[in-house]
């Protein structure tokens, strides 16, 4: 059987997404389909784990294996899959509420483990599926049903956090630029280790502040900044800090770091999923010997 070339069609499913027309998540879906196809991955080699929210529905519309789990828990699922079978390409995805609210603890710890997964956060600065509440990335002063007088809290700064925690790949993309987003996804998936791609993915229905136009006006493309060549996490952090995190592109990339599955006790070429489960009578005897 000759293998046919993989195209993004191989990652399509027949059902149509249930997102609002114009939702930024369409671009994320298309860019991701294009990116995995460009890399030449086969649908059965990819697992997409998503959380809950509009963003979480991504796995149902993406033609690979998927796990549409619980709110905030896309990362523990994704890490479990990747460590259990490191031959798979594992992607986690969710929204800003999912990842930076309820899932924040897992986010920081996944970074420090440097598990070889790509984490896509579809950041629309609002809770969309529950019809518009303030999210962890909503700006201070942002008005919504839960903050009628404007949010009293500073937003989470995901890029700062990821860089401060030493993430090996940090990027930001924008749903208004499918070409760049695809390139970033490709680079993130190819990167060995934990990759964060924060995607500005506007909610056209409930967020009337952080719109496509709003982003277009403010975002700086790092690929057009020839001087931007950060050598350290701190340099990158300073840069995004100066630019209020309103940049797109690969913000920081650390090559040559070993991923968690290569560092963990018992690391081996053979993933746990492929191990022969037979335990011989001799091995059983050895197992019991210390108790004699």
């Amino acid at each position, binding site marked *: 059987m000759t293998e046919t070339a993989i195209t993004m069609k191989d990652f399509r499913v027949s*059902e149509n997404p249930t997102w609002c027309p114009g939702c930024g998540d369409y671009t994320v879906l298309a860019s991701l389909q294009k990116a995995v196809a460009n890399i030449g991955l*086969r*649908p*059965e*080699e*990819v*697992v997409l*784990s998503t959380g*809950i929210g509009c963003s979480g*529905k991504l*796995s*149902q519309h993406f*033609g*690979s*294996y*998927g*796990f*549409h*789990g*619980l709110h905030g*828990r896309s*990362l*523990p*699922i*994704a*890490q*479990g*899959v990747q*460590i*259990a*079978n490191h*031959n*798979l390409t594992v992607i986690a995805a969710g929204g800003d509420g999912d990842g930076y609210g309820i899932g924040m*603890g*897992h986010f920081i*710890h996944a970074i420090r483990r440097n598990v070889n997964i790509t984490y896509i956060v579809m950041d629309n600065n609002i809770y969309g599926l529950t019809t518009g509440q303030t999210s962890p990335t909503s700006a201070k002063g942002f008005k919504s049903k839960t903050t009628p007088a404007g949010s009293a809290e500073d937003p989470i700064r995901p890029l700062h956090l990821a860089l401060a925690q030493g993430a090996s790949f940090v990027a930001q993309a924008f749903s208004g630029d499918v070409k760049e987003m695809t390139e970033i996804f490709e680079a993130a998936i190819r990167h060995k280790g934990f990759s964060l791609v924060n995607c500005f993915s506007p909610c056209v229905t409930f967020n009337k502040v952080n719109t496509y136009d709003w982003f277009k006006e403010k975002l700086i493309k790092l690929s057009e900044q020839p001087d931007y060549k950060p050598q350290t996490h701190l340099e990158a952090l300073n840069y995004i800090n100066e630019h209020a995190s309103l940049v797109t592109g690969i913000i920081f990339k650390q090559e040559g770091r070993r991923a968690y599955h290569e560092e*963990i*006790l*018992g690391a*081996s070429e*053979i*993933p*746990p*999923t492929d*191990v*022969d*489960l*037979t*335990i011989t*009578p001799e091995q*059983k005897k050895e*197992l*019991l010997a210390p*108790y*004699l």
Partner: protein
Amino acid sequence: MIDSINEVIVLIRERTWKVGGEQGEGIDSTGEILAKVLNRRGNYIFAYRHFMSLIKGGHTNYKIRVKDTPVHYQGDDLDILLAFDQRSIEENWSELHNDSIIIYDSSKKEMQPLEGKSPTMAPIPITAMAKELGNEIIKNMVACGASAAALGLHPNDFDEVIEDLFGKKGEKVVDLNRQAFKKGFDYYKEKFNKSYPLPEPKGKGLYLISGNEMSGLGALLGGCRYLSAYPITPATEIMYWLLHHLPKFGGRVVQMEDEIAACIMAIGANYAGVRAATSTSGPGLSLMMEALGLAGISETPLVIFDVQRGGPGTGLPTKTEQSDLNEMLYGSHGEIPRIVLIPSTIEECVVYGKIAFDLAEKYQCPVIVGSDLFLGMSKKSSDTLNIDDLNVEKRYIISQEELDQFEKGAFKRYRLDVEDGISPRSIPGQRNGRYVALSNEHDEVGLEIEEPTLRKAMFEKRMKKLVGFDLGDLALEFQGNDDASLVLVAFGSVRNQLQEVLEHLQEQGKNAAMLIIKQLKPFPKDRVRVILERASRIVVVENNGTGQLANLILQEVGFHGKLEVQLKYSGNPFTVHEILHAVETKEGVVVR
């Protein structure tokens, strides 16, 4: 002379010994050394650890009970107390009797017995002698020596264990330990002529095992090659055991940031196709409730080891209790199929730990194995441990060949037309097996739905998986005559005391029996009903405060007004005396 010694030995059926002191001064290692020595020479022992949630100070003790037959519990009384401080005498006074001996460390000051009994007091300057050897830390070896002399052991009995324990540290350390042992041994021999001989060692090739170690071993034998967990007393030893062994068998152990992540990671690993588990205790189990539901609705295998401790909240981290039963049975929102197994002996921890993985994979649902601190951390000599037949006989994952039979994209992971409700499961990496495991209600391919007919069908498919589920002999155990008028009922570790209670009652000529329920969900209600129907008296004995098993029986089987319930929730396990007294006098027994 020789004849008379034999005569004495024949009379000795059991002996109890305990070492007590502040936590952090080597109490545990003193007990561990003696336990190992006794087990190796063929004495049946049971060792129980009493400890506190702190590092230095407080009171800790290690008790060993020796019998000439297999022993399942640490005993009510105490013959020899080795006290490193006065508090040890006070804390353990109730167990002592007039023929007991208190060997105490007289290095700092004299210790005093309390009122009402007159055990022999045997002062030995244990710490001072250790200091003479240049190292205070070696006092536990001096204590071992004194204990060995009191128990009529030969110093040679200790040679092998000392070599095993300290051989790696060099001959000098071994020698030092031998000297310390001899000092304590000789001192006792010289000053005190009282001997407390041991029962005859009748065992051969005894394994000295704990429930946590056996849960770990069971997991390994059951094909578990992945554990994600968060450290918690009294379950961490399962994690240690698997950390030590899984990597050698191609597995991995991941310490997660919390129990939420630990349990959900185990679901992810199971989804990927490895048999995976998490281990925890009550507070961790509470954090895993959402994960239980996720495994249930997504039909992903999951094994949780819950080593129960005193609750609620942080509760009693170092004390035993059986109060997680309700949580295991009912915890998590919504309704899912689940299996709850409670081993009742240390040996059973290996059996249920093993089958949990077969069942989780076969039925694609969560399986909780609920032991407790008593089973998890106590050690016993076992001559019945047998793992020869514990093998992974079958995997329950659809094969690539079967998947290739489907037209492209036609595989339905959650297909409804399955008689037993079990839809074949594919794993990532398999061609043509693509699906989305879904925590939303879903259709056959894994798309979320809210359509009532489909929801109903999918719900019923899941629940159907465990209809009629019965593990047979592993579900419950009945000891005694069918026509027994008194039936004692328990689950989990209480069985160990109940076993002795039953023996006492039967010796008294009472027609008593014991029912131990090990498959708590699905509950084998029809078989339980048959047993309880014919009894004129039923006493349920539980280490919790609300009678969770009794309530389950009332709910599933009935017998309102007929169930007598004895409960203990002090943090300590039952004594045999307590149960016997309650059965005989009905004092402290409530009728449900």
